[in-house]
């Protein structure tokens, strides 16, 4: 299980971030690793709330 806070979740939601998904080897590696291992991603409600404000 991995837990994403708003700081990281924003990379999944905002395509305009420089060095985001698809342009950042470290993030891309994490995405690939999570996909490969089938790890569960948890988003705490406060983190989601922060993005929805």
């Amino acid at each position, binding site marked *: 299980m991995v837990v994403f806070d708003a700081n990281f979740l*924003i990379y999944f939601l905002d*395509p*305009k*971030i420089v060095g985001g*998904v698809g342009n950042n080897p470290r993030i891309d590696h994490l*995405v690939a690793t999570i*996909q490969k291992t089938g790890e569960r991603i948890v988003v705490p409600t406060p983190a989601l709330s922060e993005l929805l404000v």
Partner: protein
Amino acid sequence: MTKDKERRFKIDVFTPETLPMERLAEYMLQFAKLLGEPDRVHFIDVDPGSAVLRARVEDVALPKVERRMADASLGLGDPAALKALQTLDEMLANDNAVGQVFDETGAEIISFQGRNRPKPLEYGPFREDGVLEGVVIKIGGSGASVPIWLQDGETVYKHCSARRPLARKIAKHYDVGLLRVTGSGSWVRISTGAWLMRSFEINDFEVLDDTPLADVIKKLHGIDGSDWGEDSIADLARIRSGKGLN
């Protein structure tokens, strides 16, 4: 004349005739660990009457054995002896027995509470609506409520069930895809503080989307109207600090 001494472990509910050999071996192992000094402690036999395991302790090892048992009974000393003491008490409780360790004169050295020890506090069961996720690995039964096993990683939920019409729908997803089931669970809080699920009646389920994560992210990026602004990371920082907000 030998100066070796005996240490005897008595189990009240068994006799040599009723004590299963495997259980005897388990008791002997833990008794030996409690005594320690493996090269100087020797098994003699099992006395008739109540099952009494007799061990001979060589004279040279007796002070160490006595110290080890005295420490263990006070919760001190070698962790292995403490563990053996606790295990023996657990085993006695499970066998609905009590036990004692005696010396060769019949003087009691250690008394095990076994079945008489205070029952651990357990709360519940409590019923609460909940959600479980997992792959159906077993489903089927003859009653109105069909038993279902769900596997979520290394965790297997063995106490789920669903009414037959719903179970028929769930059965179509046997061993394929991850399901999220909702329903009502019965939980108990055991003495260690952990919660154990006794049963879970499934009321509904959904098949979870197994789209690759990278594709999900692309979809999220493509949602119209998300309007994150020019620098969403800086926006987040401003929200947290309160600086620059009206």
